[in-house]
């Protein structure tokens, strides 16, 4: 059987030259993302904004959007969004947070239920009060910062500081672009979006580290190679893996986007953008070339190894088991 081979053996693509294009593009995209975030803003869901959300189904084609709208408008609940979803007579109703504290939010569901009657199926009802939404937002932000910090510390221990810094700049870039994407395409930003962002972070790092690992290995092995060439060789030798893994993750995510249901749709779409479009691009075109600017040279590794050797000589002798055949 002939096996599928997407990336030919001995691919020698000059990725480093692309940094003159990829860096300005990334900078531009990041600015666009930031501007979108500042001007359009994120489409906060009720998790972070507070308010009420109802998913209602009208059985047997009895849905009349205009009727639903007029019934709800007569309640005078302030900002009410009504959106038809699917073709099954389902409506998503969002009511903005009411003035008057926690109890006022609770009253909304009762009013809507009386207005729409009992002939409809209430598939989902969510009410988040002002205090809880404030807390969820701060937890989300704290969570993102904590994750970035923990990962940085780990990388700093495991690699050199240049690598840790490079990975975190690359990651920050991923998150900025993803947030910009969510702002521009008005994707609901709720708790699952925070989950998506964190997963994108973890996944993109995973990718970056695979390449960094190889760079570190090459740095130890080829002490004389110019850094450009060494980075290129590292990326090229892991390219096949990057592409294949990319395809498998895309396949998994694609099935989530297409069949995973509405409840996780915004999650899946965000992941698709962050992991598939941004994550791999960042590892190859941003994270790796960044190392040049951060001053990684073959000497970096040599110094580190010398340090480790002296440390080992001072401590107790190594007790590694001999390798098995």
């Amino acid at each position, binding site marked *: *059987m002939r*096996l*599928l*081979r997407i990336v030919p*053996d001995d691919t020698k693509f000059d990725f480093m030259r692309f940094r003159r294009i990829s860096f300005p593009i990334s900078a531009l995209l990041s600015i666009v993302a930031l501007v979108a975030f500042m001007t359009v803003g994120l489409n906060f869901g009720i998790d972070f904004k507070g308010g009420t959300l109802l998913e209602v*189904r009208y059985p047997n084609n009895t849905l009349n959007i205009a009727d639903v709208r007029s019934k709800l408008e007569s309640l005078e609940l302030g900002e009410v969004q009504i959106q038809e979803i699917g073709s099954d007579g389902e409506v998503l109703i969002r009511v903005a947070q009411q003035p008057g504290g*926690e109890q006022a939010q*609770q009253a909304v569901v*009762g009013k809507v239920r009386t207005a729409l009657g009992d002939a409809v199926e209430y*598939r989902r*009802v969510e*009410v*988040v*009060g002002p*205090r809880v939404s404030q807390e*969820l937002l701060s937890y989300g932000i*704290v*969570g993102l910062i904590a*994750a970035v910090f*923990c*990962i940085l510390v*780990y*990388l700093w221990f495991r690699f050199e500081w240049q690598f840790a810094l490079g990975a975190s700049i690359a990651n920050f870039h991923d998150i900025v672009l993803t947030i910009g994407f969510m702002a521009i395409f008005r994707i609901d930003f709720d*708790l*699952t979006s*925070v989950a998506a962002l*964190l*997963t994108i972070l*973890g*996944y993109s*790092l995973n990718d970056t*580290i*695979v390449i960094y*690992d*190889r760079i570190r*290995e090459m740095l130890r092995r080829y002490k004389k190679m110019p850094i450009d060439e060494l980075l290129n060789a590292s990326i090229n*030798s*892991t390219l*096949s*893996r990057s592409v*294949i*893994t990319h*395809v*498998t*993750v*895309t*396949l*998994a*995510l*694609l*099935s*989530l986007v*297409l*069949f*995973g*249901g509405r409840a*996780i749709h915004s*999650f899946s779409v965000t*992941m698709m953008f962050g992991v598939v479009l941004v994550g791999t691009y960042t590892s190859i075109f941003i994270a790796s070339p960044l190392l040049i600017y951060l001053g990684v040279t073959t000497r970096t590794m040599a110094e580190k190894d010398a340090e480790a050797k002296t440390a080992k000589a001072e401590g107790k002798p190594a007790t590694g088991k001999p390798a*098995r055949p």
Partner: protein
Amino acid sequence: MLYFSRWKALAIVVLSAIICLMVVPSLLSPTAFEKLPGFLQRKIVLGLDLQGGSYIVLEVQQNDVRQMRLTQLRDDSRRLLRDAKIGFSNVAIQGDAVIVRVREANDGDAALAKLRELAQPIGGVMAGGGQLDTDVSLSGDTIRIAPSAAGLQARTIQAVSQSIEIIRKRIDQLGTTEPSIQRQGADRIQVQVPGLQDPSRLKALLGQTAQLTFRLVDTSVNAQQALQGRPPAGTDILYSQDNPPQPYVIEQRVLVAGEDLTDAQPSFDPQTREPVVTFRFNTNGARRFAEATQANVGRPFAIILDNHVISAPVIREPILGGSGQISGNFSVQQANDLAILLRAGALPVPLQVVEERTVGPGLGADSIQAGLVASIVGAVLVALFMIATYGLFGVIAVVAVAVNVGMIFGILAMLGATLTLPGIAGVVLTVGIAVDSNVLIYERIREEARAGRSAISAIDAGFSRALATILDSNITTFIAAAVLFYVGSGPVRGFAITFGIGIVTTVFTAFTLTRLMAAVWVRWKRPQRVPI
């Protein structure tokens, strides 16, 4: 890297199989599950988003705790001063303190000493008597009694514990399966009730304090007059639930309270046929009620629930039997719920709903369906691609990933963890990422073979070099999952759990099963050429 002792190989296979088999109890019917020995009765719980149900977070308001404590302090101060025969001109709640005015200025110190008894060390005498829960201070002829911040905090925590007990009793009466009631932080209670169509009844049951008191109606003044001026000392103006509400002047002194009820049942009034609640007092309550009714024949008394007058009948004759009935234009459902509330007892303070999420059973079933389809499609696509790319080694990868997914569910069952829709997404993502470990290994093997190594040595080197990378890259992803677990709640936490477990099992299978399968193949086939 390709050598496994027989024992080690056996241990790997047996351990993987056992972990996978832990999922079996979750697949059994409830009756078969009951027959299992206790240590096997562990299964995956479906999240509310999958099985439908209500998630409600209730909060104890510190202000309510303060009011409760102030009322207590006010009543206790009156009693203490009366018992000590110290004359006072006024004892009242003002702002966040109780203000006591003694009649004779030189009684001030005696009153202060007496009222200091109100302050108790936080956490009880046994806790080593650190801070006091109440500050008592004297200036001139007034004594100020204020609950301290730490005291209120302790009482909030206590109120939450008591409320949890009472909520449990109330929900048990609804007859739903497996409700979960947990403390959340210092002042919140999280209630999860699966399989409820309409949470409004649940919320009504949780939202009522159900503080029942029997008090005398003060007939010395007309309610309307009292509204104009000030109500007589020691009385409150409370309203009925009629439309429009009727005011009543009610004495603050409580004749008998809800704590003294032993039973309450919904029933029908034999004469009017309307739904009522009949109740029975305990001995103490019966005695006090008998005494109060004997002394006040001809006067009206009020039955008060949560500061609303339910009814105010006139005492025609002493009620000595220790039982009675409450009527108040109830519907059958209302009478039923009131009986439940009275049987379960009153909450120490009112609870406020701060978050509610309800998923109907229809949406839950749809989500399970969607999750299943997405998982199967995702898994099949990934498997086909892997086999197309790596042939036999692709099959090894698919087997490893299948065992991996089996182990995720096995571990979920062992932990009794909750599976949510985002959790299923976590499993699907793990499938995508788990094959990455195989890809890393295989690509490395290819490279080593291209560098001129023999087949066996290339496979060996491929494994040993790739495993270090796998460990590094997965630890960072695991950190993200762990953080998510700590900050997330509900469904998001479900995602963090499956994703986190998935990373651990991925590393485990890469280090053991994949390697073992490759080793067995190498020993059997003695390949001359790397087959990928």
